[in-house]
C-alpha cells in the first residue's frame, strides 16, 4: 500500500524529520490560499500514486499568486499516467545547494533490510542504481537489532555526504529505519534530502509504502489507503479481493495460483494469442469467487474469449464447476466463449457438473489455451 507524499511527510515530521511547511489543497482557490500562507516560491505537487510526477508535469514551482493559480489549475484534474489528480500539496520552496538520497528497503536476496545513502539525490534513483551503483552506499541491517546508530553514520560517511551535514543525515536515516520497522514499511525513502545554504537538511519528498501483509497491525495506516485505480476494472478487482493485472490482449485468463496463471498467460502468447489480463482467484476458491471472476473478465470489453484454468489442490473442481454454471446460467446469452480446464482435486466431478452447452471443456492446459486463442481470433474477426 502506497502513502501519498503528504501523508508520509506528516509521519516523518511527527518523528522529527525536518520537512518544508506545506498545505494540502483540493481546489485551485485552496491551493492559492495555501501558497499565500506558506509564502512564495511554492512547489505545487500532484498527490497521485505514480512515479516520475515531475517529468510528467505534476510538479510546478510558482513564484507568485498568478502562477500559483495557473499551475494549480493545470495540475488539479490532470491525467497523470491514467490517474486523475484530485489533490495537490502546496509546499514552501527550499533554497538548496545540494540534493541527497536516503532510503530503507528490504534486500530480498539477503533477507535483510538495507539502508541506502547517496549524494545523487533529486534524480531517478533506480537509474543511478543501474548506471553507477557505486554512487549508492548500502548497509545491511540485522533485523533483530535494528539499524545501529554507528551503521547510519558509517553509510553516510561512505556515501561521501558533506561533513557539515553528515551527522544530521545519519540521524534522519536512523529515524527512517525506526519508522520502517514500526510502521511495517516495505520501502521508505527521501529523495531528495535538500541541503540548504546554511547547512540545514530538509526532506523535500517522501515515499512510504506499507507491507500489505502487515496492514492488520497498522490500523491507522490502513485508514490512509487511497483506493484510486486506473479504471473500474482494477477497482472491481480490489473489491473482490483478486490479484488482477490488466493487459493489452483479448484472451481473458482466470486461474488459481500466481505461477499457474502466469504460465497460462505465457501459453496464450506462445500459441499466438494475446492475454487480456492476469487474474488469480487464489487457493480454495468457492463458487461465489468463481462467479465474481467471470463477471470481471466479461466486464473487460477487450476480451473476446476466456480460458479458465484450475489445478485443484485446496481448490475443488466441483466447486469451481458449480460457480461457472451459476455465473453463465445467469446470462441469456454467454457474452464470450469460455474454455474450461479442470485438473487435480475433484476435477472429474467438476467436469461432469459443467454444462457443455455453456462452456468448452478441455483436458489439458495446452489444448485449453489453444482453443481459447482460436475462439478469440474468431470473435475478433467477426
Amino acid at each position: 500500500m502506497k502513502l501519498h507524499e503528504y501523508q508520509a511527510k506528516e509521519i516523518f515530521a511527527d518523528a522529527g524529520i525536518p520537512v518544508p511547511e506545506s498545505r494540502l489543497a483540493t481546489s485551485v482557490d485552496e491551493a492559492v490560499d495555501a501558497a499565500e500562507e506558506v509564502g512564495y516560491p511554492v512547489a505545487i505537487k500532484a498527490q497521485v500514486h505514480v512515479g516520475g510526477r515531475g517529468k510528467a508535469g505534476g510538479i510546478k514551482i510558482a513564484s507568485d499568486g498568478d502562477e500559483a493559480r495557473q499551475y494549480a489549475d493545470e495540475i488539479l484534474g490532470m491525467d497523470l499516467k491514467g490517474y486523475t489528480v484530485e489533490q495537490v500539496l502546496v509546499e514552501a520552496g527550499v533554497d538548496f545547494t545540494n540534493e541527497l538520497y536516503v532510503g530503507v528497503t528490504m534486500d530480498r536476496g539477503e533477507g535483510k533490510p538495507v539502508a541506502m545513502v547517496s549524494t545523487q539525490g533529486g534524480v531517478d534513483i533506480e537509474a543511478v542504481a543501474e548506471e553507477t551503483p557505486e554512487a549508492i552506499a548500502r548497509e545491511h541491517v540485522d533485523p533483530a537489532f535494528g539499524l545501529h546508530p554507528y551503521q547510519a553514520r558509517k553509510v553516510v560517511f561512505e556515501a561521501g555526504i558533506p561533513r557539515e551535514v553528515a551527522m544530521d543525515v545519519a540521524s534522519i536515516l536512523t529515524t527512517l529505519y525506526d519508522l520502517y520497522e514500526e510502521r511495517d514499511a516495505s520501502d521508505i525513502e527521501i529523495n531528495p534530502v535538500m541541503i540548504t545554504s546554511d547547512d540545514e537538511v530538509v526532506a523535500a519528498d517522501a515515499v512510504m509504502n506499507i507491507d500489505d501483509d502487515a496492514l492488520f497491525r497498522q490500523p491507522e495506516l490502513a485508514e490512509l489507503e487511497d483506493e484510486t485505480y486506473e479504471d473500474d476494472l482494477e477497482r472491481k478487482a480490489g473489491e473482490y479481493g483478486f490479484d488482477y493485472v490488466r493487459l493489452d490482449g483479448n484472451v481473458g485468463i482466470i486461474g488459481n495460483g500466481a505461477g499457474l496463471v502466469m504460465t497460462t498467460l505465457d501459453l496464450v502468447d506462445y500459441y499466438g494469442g494475446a492475454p487480456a489480463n492476469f487474474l488469480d482467484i487464489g487457493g480454495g476458491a468457492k463458487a461465489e469467487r468463481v462467479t465474481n471472476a467471470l463477471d470481471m473478465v466479461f466486464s473487460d470489453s477487450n476480451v473476446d474469449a476466456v480460458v479458465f484454468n484450475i489445478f485443484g489442490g485446496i481448490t475443488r473442481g466441483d466447486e469451481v464447476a458449480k460457480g461457472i454454471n451459476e455465473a453463465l446460467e445467469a446470462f441469456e446469452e454467454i457474452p464470450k466463449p469460455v474454455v474450461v480446464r479442470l485438473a487435480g482435486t475433484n476435477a472429474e466431478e467438476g467436469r461432469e457438473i459443467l454444462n457443455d452447452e455453456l462452456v468448452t471443456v478441455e483436458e489439458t492446459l495446452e489444448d485449453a489455451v489453444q482453443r481459447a486463442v482460436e475462439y478469440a481470433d474468431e470473435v475478433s474477426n467477426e
Partner: protein
Amino acid sequence: MSILVDENTRVVVQGITGGEGKFHTEQMMEYGTNVVAGAVPGRGGQEVEGVPVYDTVDEAVEEEDANASVVFVPPAFAADALFEALDTDLDLVVAITEGIPTQDMAKVKKRLSEVDTRLIGPNCPGIITPGEAKLGILPGNIFADGNVGLVSRSGTLTYQVVDNLTGRGVGQTTAIGIGGDPIIGTSFIDALELFEGDEETEAVVMCGEIGGEDEEEAAAYIAEYMDTPVAGFIAGRTAPPGKRMGHAGAIVSGSGTGTAESKIDALNDAGVPVGDTPEEVADHIEDFL
C-alpha cells in the same frame, strides 16, 4: 531414497485445530503421513483426528518424538509459531501460511541462521515424497513414486508440471514447493544441493518465475556443482515490467535481472534446457532418463 521427508518423518501440525489445519491433517494422514501431534496454545489435551494436541511444540516433540512440523497458523501469529518451532530440535519446518509480514520473515531468517533446523516456505504448498509422506497441501493423487526431483516457487504450477510427468509415467523422488514470498527458508540452491546428493534422483525439474535473482543464482550453482541433469521452466515471460503478479516475489523491476529472459538465458548458459510449456519440460526430463 528421497530428500528431507520419508516414511519415518514424525509430524507435528501447528495450528491443527483451525479449519485448514484440520482438513489437511486429515489429508496428510490419508496419504500415509505419520502425523503424531498437534500444537495449539491453550488446546493441550484435546484430540484432532485422533492426534493428541499439545500447548507447545516443545511438548509435542518431547512426548511424541516429532521431528518435523507443518505450520497452518494464521499470518498474524505465524512468525511466532516459526520461532517456536525453530527453538526445538525439529529437523524440518514447513510453513504453509500465506501473507506473513516480510519484516517478520526477516527476523525468522535471522533466527534460522542460528539453528540447524531447515525451514521450507512460507507461502508454499509443502513437500512430498510420493508413497511415503506429504507435509503440506499438495494433492497427493497426482504424484507417483519415481526418480525425478522437483523444486518450484509456485504451488499450482508444481501440480501442473507433476501432472505432465506422472501422465507419461515419470515418477518423483521428492517434490518441494519453496514458496513465492520475498524471504523464504529454503532456496532453489538448497533444494538442488539436496537432490544432487540423493542417489535415487536422476533428474531434476526446477520451476522458477519472474522476480528476484534466485533462478540466476541457481543456474550458476548448477553449472558449477551439479552432475544430475536439470530441466527448467520459468513462468511470467509475458508479464509487463513493474507489475506485481500475485506472488510478492513475482515483480519485474525492469532493471535487467529478474526478468524471464535473464533467467532463461542464465539457465540455458548453465546447460539447463528450459521448456516453453510444461509439456516440453516433461519432454526434456524424459530425454534425461
